[in-house]
C-alpha cells in the first residue's frame, strides 16, 4: 500500500510544490521542501551558512550554543509557512485579491505568495558574514547582512537567475523585496518573515533557548500561530496581521521570552565583551581582505577561527592581543552596568564615569560597550505612551477590532525597549574590581 502523506497541502499548490524532501530539525521536527527549494539549499551560497554559527562566541558562555545560521534559516522557512497557511486559511480570499494586483502574481497568486514567503524566510540571512552580527560592523563596512542578502537573492551574479527559472519569473525580485521593503500590497508577507509576530524571531527564540539550554525563550508558539488572523485596514486597504483575543496571552509570552532572552543571553555581559574582542580583532586586520561582497561571502566561522587561533599564537600577528584573549578566554571584567530601566540620558552619565575612572586608574585598561540601538522588546502602541510612535496591532474579538496595546495590561507595564551598557576593566583581582565598581557607581550617582 502506498504511503500517504500525513500533511494535506493547500489545494492551490501544484506538483512543483510537492515536498519531496525532508530534514529533521531539533526544534520543529521535520521540515519539508520541494525539488526547486533543494537546489537553493544545496547552492554553495546557502550551504556556507552551515559554517556560520548563529550566536558567534556565545558558546564561550553557553557551550551548547554552536548551532548555525543554516538550521535557523530552514526553521524560519518552516515558521513562515505555518504562519502563511494559518492566515490563508482565515482570509485567503482577501489575501488573493490584494496580491493579485501585483503583475508577477496575477497567476497562481496564492502559490506564488506562499513561495516568496518561504524563500524570504530561507534566504533572509544568506548575506551574513562570519561570526554573524559581531563582525558585521567591521567586515561589512556598516552595510549590514540584510543588504547583502538582498543582493545575493536579486543579483544575477548570485541566485537571481536560478530563482527566476526554478520558481517563476520575477520571483527573485519579489523575494528580495520582502526583506528590503515590499510594495504596500505585500506588506503582510514581509511581516510574516520579520514583523511583530514573525517567523524569524519565533525561530531564533526557540532555537537559541534549545541550544543554550535555557528556558527563557520558550513560549506556546503553536497556539500563537493558531490565533493569528488577517485584518483589512478600512482606510488604507492594506492587509495587516492581527491576533484573536484568545491569543493575547500567548503574544504576551512571546514578548516576555524576547525580553528575557535579551537580558539573559544576547546581552549577557561576557558575550558582549567577546563581541568587542572580535570587533577589535577584525579592525586590526588588513581591511582589503573584506572589501568586496565576494570576499565577505568567502569567509565563514571555520576559516576565520583558524586565522584567529594562529594570531593568538603569534605575538607579531595583527590583532594578536584580541585573538589571545578570545582563544585563551582571558577577558576583562564587568565593573559597571547601566540599569536597564534608565533612558538614553544615562549614556551621558556613563561617559562621565568612563572619563573619571580612566583618570583615576591610569594603569588599568577599560573598555566600554554601548550598543548603537536600544534593545527593542515590542513596538506596540499603548494608551500610556507619551509619543505617537507605536504600532497599532489589531486585536480581533468577534468582528470587532481593537488594539493589542489597549487590551494588554502587561504590554502597558512593560517598557517597549531597554538600554544596555557596560564598562569592563582588565583587572583579575576581585577586591580591586569591587572597589572600582563601587567607585563607578558613586561617580554615576553624582554625575
Amino acid at each position, binding site marked *: 500500500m502506498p504511503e500517504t502523506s500525513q500533511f494535506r497541502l493547500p489545494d492551490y499548490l501544484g506538483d512543483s510544490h510537492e515536498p519531496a524532501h525532508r530534514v529533521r530539525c531539533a526544534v520543529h521536527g521535520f521540515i519539508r521542501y520541494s525539488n526547486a527549494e533543494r537546489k537553493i539549499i544545496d547552492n554553495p551560497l546557502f550551504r556556507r551558512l552551515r559554517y556560520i554559527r548563529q550566536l558567534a562566541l556565545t558558546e564561550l558562555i553557553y557551550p551548547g550554543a554552536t548551532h548555525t545560521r543554516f538550521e535557523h534559516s530552514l526553521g524560519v522557512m518552516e515558521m513562515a509557512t505555518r504562519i502563511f497557511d494559518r492566515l490563508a486559511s482565515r482570509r485567503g480570499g482577501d489575501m488573493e485579491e490584494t496580491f493579485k*494586483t501585483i*503583475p508577477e502574481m496575477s497567476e497562481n497568486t496564492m502559490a506564488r505568495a506562499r513561495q516568496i514567503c518561504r524563500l524570504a524566510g530561507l534566504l533572509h540571512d544568506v548575506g551574513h558574514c562570519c561570526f554573524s552580527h559581531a563582525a558585521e560592523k567591521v567586515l561589512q563596512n556598516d552595510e549590514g547582512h540584510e543588504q547583502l542578502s538582498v543582493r545575493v537573492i536579486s543579483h544575477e551574479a548570485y541566485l537571481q537567475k536560478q530563482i527566476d527559472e526554478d520558481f517563476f519569473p520575477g520571483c527573485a525580485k519579489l523575494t528580495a523585496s520582502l526583506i528590503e521593503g515590499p510594495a*504596500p500590497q505585500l506588506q503582510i508577507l514581509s511581516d510574516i518573515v520579520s514583523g511583530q509576530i514573525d517567523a524569524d524571531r519565533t525561530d531564533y527564540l526557540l532555537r537559541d533557548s534549545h541550544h543554550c539550554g535555557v528556558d527563557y525563550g520558550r513560549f506556546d508558539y503553536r497556539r500563537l500561530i493558531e490565533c493569528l488572523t488577517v485584518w483589512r485596514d478600512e*482606510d*488604507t*486597504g*492594506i492587509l495587516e496581521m492581527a491576533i484573536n483575543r484568545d491569543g493575547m496571552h500567548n503574544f504576551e509570552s512571546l514578548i516576555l521570552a524576547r525580553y528575557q532572552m535579551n537580558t539573559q543571553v544576547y546581552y549577557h555581559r561576557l558575550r558582549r565583551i567577546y563581541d568587542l574582542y572580535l570587533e577589535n580583532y577584525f579592525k586590526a586586520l588588513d581591511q582589503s581582505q573584506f572589501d568586496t561582497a565576494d570576499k565577505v561571502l568567502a569567509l565563514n566561522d571555520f576559516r576565520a577561527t583558524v586565522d584567529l587561533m594562529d594570531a593568538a599564537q603569534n605575538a607579531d600577528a595583527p590583532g594578536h592581543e584580541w585573538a589571545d584573549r578570545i582563544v585563551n578566554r582571558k577577558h576583562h571584567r564587568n565593573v559597571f552596568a547601566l540599569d536597564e530601566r534608565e533612558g538614553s540620558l544615562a*549614556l551621558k552619565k556613563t561617559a562621565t564615569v568612563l572619563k573619571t575612572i580612566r583618570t583615576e586608574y591610569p594603569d588599568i585598561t577599560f573598555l566600554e560597550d554601548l550598543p548603537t*540601538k536600544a534593545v527593542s522588546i515590542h513596538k506596540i502602541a499603548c494608551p500610556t505612551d507619551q509619543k505617537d510612535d507605536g504600532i497599532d496591532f489589531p486585536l480581533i474579538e468577534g468582528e470587532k477590532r481593537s488594539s493589542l496595546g489597549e487590551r494588554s495590561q502587561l504590554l502597558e507595564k512593560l517598557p517597549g525597549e531597554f538600554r544596555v551598557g557596560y564598562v569592563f576593566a582588565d583587572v583579575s583581582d576581585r577586591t580591586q574590581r569591587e572597589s572600582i565598581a563601587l567607585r563607578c557607581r558613586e561617580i554615576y550617582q553624582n554625575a
Partner: protein
Amino acid sequence: MSLLLEHQWEHALLAAVIEAAKRECPGCYLGRTAIQKLVYFVQVLDVPMRYKFRIHHYGPFCDEVPSALEWLQADSIVEDLSENDRYSNYAPAENWPVLQEKYAKELELNKETIQSVVKAMGGMDPNTLELIATLHYSFRWVQACGGNGPWQNATITKFKEIKKDKFSDDEISHWYDDLVAAELIEN
C-alpha cells in the same frame, strides 16, 4: 567635544536633514511628523538610508526614526528645544560638527539631495507634508499594480481611500501637480 556613542551613516544623514531644515527655515517648528516625511522623501530620492516606511496615522512612518533621534540626542548631536513632552522641535546641537566630520564623505555625496528636499519641503506644515507623503505612497501602491499609466486618477482614488475627506480635491490636485513637476511621481 567628542562622541560617546557609535553611529551609523543614517544617523549623520538624519542629523543633516535636521540641520538643513533648521538652516533653510530657522523659525520653523521641526517636529517628529515633519522629520518622518522629510526622511521619507530623502530616501525616495535614493539617499541610502535603510529606513522601512509603512502607512501610519499621519502618512508614511518608520519606527526606527524616533529611536535614531533619541540616540542623536543622547550624544548631543541634536536637541529637542520643545518644553512640551507631547511635541518636539529638533535642532542641531554641539556635537553635530563632530559627526559631520566623521561622515564627511557620505554627507558630501548626498548633500544636494538633502538640500533640495529640505528647500522644497522644510517650510511646509505637518498637514501638507502628510498630504504629499501619502500621495506619494498611494502612487507607489498604484504603480506596483503594473502598467504604464496614466496614474493620476488611480493614485488620487487610493489617496482618498486612505485619507477620506481630510483634504479637498483642489489641495490634492495642486500637490499632485507639484509632485509631478518635482519628478517625484508621474502623471
